[in-house]
């Protein structure tokens, strides 16, 4: 069987896969990183979004072998070893940007890529457009958009701490 060597959340692994093995299957079933979810499996819902060499991609629509040699970041790789959450995770918590939580890992990974690509800041409209590839079926997106708007201020150093959500 072919082998894939890739670095996931800073740890390098070599894993035997089939030609047809998807990156998300490698992450969940071989590396047991089950934070990356499979929602639709048809590249529409975005629950499986991870970063491959810094770009957000749908892990259900890339072969594991195509990620050979890549740096992959999943939701498990965002918090610091001491448990301090990434500003985007902290914002999702503070703004209650989730209900059932199923779409959340993909939302957070997409949101981080979106914010990183727009250092000058995103308007509410741009955030909504940027989330086109992520579906949430619970919250109606409003709190997700608010969380991303708040997190971008911290991520780009314009705010020391996350603005608290309104009561």
């Amino acid at each position, binding site marked *: 069987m072919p082998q894939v060597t890739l670095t996931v959340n800073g740890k390098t692994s070599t894993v035997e896969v089939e030609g047809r093995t998807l990156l998300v299957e490698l992450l969940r079933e071989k590396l047991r990183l089950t934070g990356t979810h499979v929602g639709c499996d048809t590249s529409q819902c975005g629950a499986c*979004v991870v970063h491959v060499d810094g770009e957000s991609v749908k892990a259900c629509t890339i*072969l594991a*072998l195509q990620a050979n040699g890549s740096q992959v970041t999943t939701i498990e790789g965002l918090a610091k070893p001491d448990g301090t959450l990434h500003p985007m995770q902290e914002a999702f918590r503070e703004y209650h940007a989730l209900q059932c939580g199923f779409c959340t890992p993909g939302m957070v990974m997409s949101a981080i890529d979106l914010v990183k690509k727009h250092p000058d800041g995103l308007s509410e409209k741009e955030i909504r457009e940027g989330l086109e*590839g992520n579906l949430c079926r619970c919250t109606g997106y409003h709190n997700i958009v608010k969380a991303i708007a708040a997190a971008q201020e911290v991520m780009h150093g314009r705010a020391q701490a996350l603005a608290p959500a309104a009561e």
Partner: protein
Amino acid sequence: MYDFEYHKPGSLADAVKLLSADPDARPISGGQTLLPALKHRLNKPTSVVDLSGITELKGIRKEGDKLVIGALAKHFEVATSEVVKAAIPALAQMAGTIGDTQVRNRGTIGGSVANNDPAADYPSAVLGLNATIVTDKRRIAADDFFQGMFTTALEPGELLVAIEFPIPEKAGYAKMRNPASRYVMAGAFVAKTGGTVRVAINGAGPGVFRQTEMETALSTNWSPEAVAGIKQDADGLNSDIHGSAEYRAHLVTVMAKRAIAAAG
């Protein structure tokens, strides 16, 4: 998905060799169309040949009065390229509306054009701009390349290497998306290049096609009003649960007007 062998050749010659040796091998780059098709078992390749490491297929550059885009250019790269934005802003704008961010981070122009999905965006830019498709064997004019639903002039084992776009004086694109799938219901790409006007329509028919009546009207009067009275014949257009042929025919005129307004 059925299993297959995976190859990642380092050169165009090696890729062509692998694809020529096995008629059931399929090329892959972004895989944003091929992988969903394989999951549905619509296709059963014995092997997939990953083109993503082939330098000859990469790059975006201006060569004289042409913009040359390598087959492996991702939609995100085309959308954000300063070279594309300066030469053909309508093309960059179009690339920025394909699929979603994650699809644009993987999907490539070569894959989209070679696949020729009737609801894809790029084919109308290629046809509207009278681009030339460069393969490993020959050069093909856009008018000869697209041959209807998922069909092109590419022969088995032939690989799309790059697309050469003549730089137009004016160009614009507008589309109506299906509200759920976000695929194109009807789109229009209009371009004026060297005094010649071309109008390409995607999404509405079984393949991208030129709207010659609108081309004639725009040649003498480049304005949305010039096409406002031109009705697209609904005969032969797509008719499905998303919209009737008559609805799509109506959209063609609306999208053409918007595309001309966008071109300025």
